[in-house]
């Protein structure tokens, strides 16, 4: 089975995470679970990848973090998308359309 290459997807980790956060604020494991579910188990994001994305995006002002206790009393860091984050997400979507279009030209499909 072909696995997804982390080199290729790296540039879109932020986009994927921001997409999850569009609906509602969320925390680490919940985000990774949603990514896995939405990608139909084809992409399992590593914890370190997730964490580095969080800190990078927080530094750039795309997300904000706050801590909140869950029902079982466990304290978790929640992330919330900012206006700047939404704008960045839109840009990345457009960038992807372009990238996809360009790369598509060079793929010999077996459709």
């Amino acid at each position: 089975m072909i696995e997804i290459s982390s080199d290729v997807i790296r540039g879109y980790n932020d986009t994927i995470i921001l997409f999850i956060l569009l609906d509602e604020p969320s925390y680490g494991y919940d985000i990774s679970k949603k990514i896995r579910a939405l990608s139909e188990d084809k992409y399992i994001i590593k914890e370190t990848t997730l964490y580095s994305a969080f800190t990078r995006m927080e530094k750039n002002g795309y997300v904000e973090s706050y801590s909140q206790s869950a029902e079982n009393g466990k304290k978790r860091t929640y992330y919330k998308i900012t206006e700047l984050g939404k704008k960045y997400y839109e840009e990345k979507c457009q960038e992807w359309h372009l990238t996809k279009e360009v790369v598509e030209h060079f793929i010999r499909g077996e459709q």
Partner: protein
Amino acid sequence: METIKNYLETMFANLPNTLEVKKAKDELYSMMEDKFTELIGEGKPENEAIAIVISEFGNLDEISESLGINNVVSEMETTDRRLISQNECDNYIADSARRRFFNSLGILLCIFSPIGPIIFGSIGNAVGIDAIELIGVILLFICIAAGISLFMIASFLMRDWKFLDKELCTISYSTAEYLAREKEDSQSYKLVLRTLGIVLCSISFLPVIILDTILGSSFSIITEGFAPALIFIGAGIGVFFIMFSGAKDAAFDKLLSLNDTTTVAGNYEPVKKVKKEYVSRAAEILMKDYWKTVLAIYLILSFTSFNWGSTWLIWPIAGILRKPLTEIFLKK
């Protein structure tokens, strides 16, 4: 879950102990914990859950940027600290216990040393030949010489471990945890020996009082010779037990304090507790060579006053004073 925690601690062990690193560790742990709990909830066996969590953890190098470190991996490779394995730790503890045994035996002989002059002095008095007391004095010197030889053997035993003070060394998280657990386990054994020692010291006076009351002054060889000698035998063995009881503790503490407190591993709870820093260099020298200093004071006082009957009290007093003195000289 313990395995996952150990894994994470080991991964982070050599990283600097900064706020960013701690935050990253906590955050990653929280995610791993969530994942683990869910996998177990799905009915996965624990081993499988652990394997999944660890395999999906990723690479620490990836978060180096957010930790404010250029490269985690190269950082780890350039640490020139010598890693002490669990096996080496066990050997070190065994050697330390052996050293403490010889040291304690040396002190025991030093405390026993006045027995010669006391017994032979009283025999000399009883039979009216003073020269007999000389045998006692010779015995005293033999005891002290043997005691000092034992101190020398003890320091010789530790020659292979000198590097612990000279080189920068480190122990892994799991070794630290193993040592902390072993130390905990050895506490009851320590307490028994220590109590036995204190009891022996306290009752060492009894024979002389009892025999004196029963016999009066009619048997001077017993009341002035053998009975006082029993004080030294009791006190000697008592002090030996007290000294030896802490043998392993000192070794555990030494190993646990190896890790640099600026790293995550050095910040591990039992390590923090045993890291000793003294207020001044003089205080450090005094406390590190505590028993040698006490021996010097004991010998000087004994030979100048020739009051062997009471100078041995220096040993239990020194034993009691050690803790408060350490408290005073340690940096808070």
